[in-house]
């Protein structure tokens, strides 16, 4: 029963959180400063997400492991203007290799 309450409750809340963003009246966001902020929010959230996904482990503790090796490789390839798919595949392969080699 507890599991069902959690599954249904989290699903309803999760959809509601997405829906709210689409039904907030446009005039609330008409201020140029708010419009500029809304356009910039994805950059902030996604940058933070990359950092958290790569450099934190259990309990939010900072960690540097094979994921960091993959991300650095991705950054170098992007800097060298590599193709999108090449960057993703290389990051995965290098992370997998670092893990398999037990480097971290």
């Amino acid at each position: 029963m507890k599991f069902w309450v959690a599954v249904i409750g989290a699903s309803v809340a999760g959809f509601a959180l997405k829906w709210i963003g689409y039904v907030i009246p446009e005039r609330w966001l008409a201020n140029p400063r708010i419009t500029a902020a809304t356009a910039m929010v994805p950059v902030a959230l996604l940058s933070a997400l990359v950092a958290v996904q790569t450099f934190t482990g259990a309990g939010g503790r900072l960690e540097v492991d094979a994921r960091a090796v993959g991300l650095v490789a991705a950054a170098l390839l992007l800097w060298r203007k590599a193709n999108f798919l090449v960057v993703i595949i290389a990051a995965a392969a290098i992370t997998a290799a670092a893990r398999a080699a037990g480097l971290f």
Partner: protein
Amino acid sequence: MITLPGVSADPDVSPLSGTVERASAKRQALSVGLATGLYGISFGALATTSGLSIIQAQILSLVLFSGGSQFAVVGVLGAGGSAASAIATSSLLGARNTFYALRMAQILDVRGWRRLGAAHLTIDESTAVGTAQGSVMAQRLGFWLTGVTIFAGWNLMTLAGSVAGNSLGDPKRWGLDAAASAAFLALLWPRLTARPAQVLAAAAVVIALSTSPFLTSGVPVILTIIAAFAVAAWVTRRRVAPRERRAR
């Protein structure tokens, strides 16, 4: 030099032609969609080993449909936590979707059933691919195609993972977790040529990493919205200031 997609911050002055732009949006959407969809296997496997039924795991992937939130529900329940705690933790991680939705609502301009669909597909990946494109048409294509591809892949792989369990292997062994971060970085990359975006990204990384050991998961990422507002205030003031000076 080949121009990367989404180089221009202004959707109307894209350096790429429409066809090239759409092809690029499509390629990015499909690669991100496939890599993320495959990861559903680890969600399905973790859900059932944590005590959820196959149907419960599938409802989370079908209805909650937000990776971080889904792993949170399973993690809390698997550790013996209460339903309320599972819902709260999941919602903290899902709160960033509200902010993605605010942005995507401006780009997609959808009503009725399409708005329901757009809301449902509003997650990290679809927003990342959508906002990375240089024209509104490519932004819309990138968002919808990424969302639909992930929805299909994620749900199929959830089922595969929850039925077969860990026997299919851990996607981490293939480095799929790093592939997701690399994809986000690649999508952000062209936008990081402008100074305000660079400052914002650096501030966001510092805020998220420095608060992550102390705050519950989801909150460190959401906190970076403060930085977005600060940079937006700085940019709009810079843009408005010369006009005000002329007026005087």
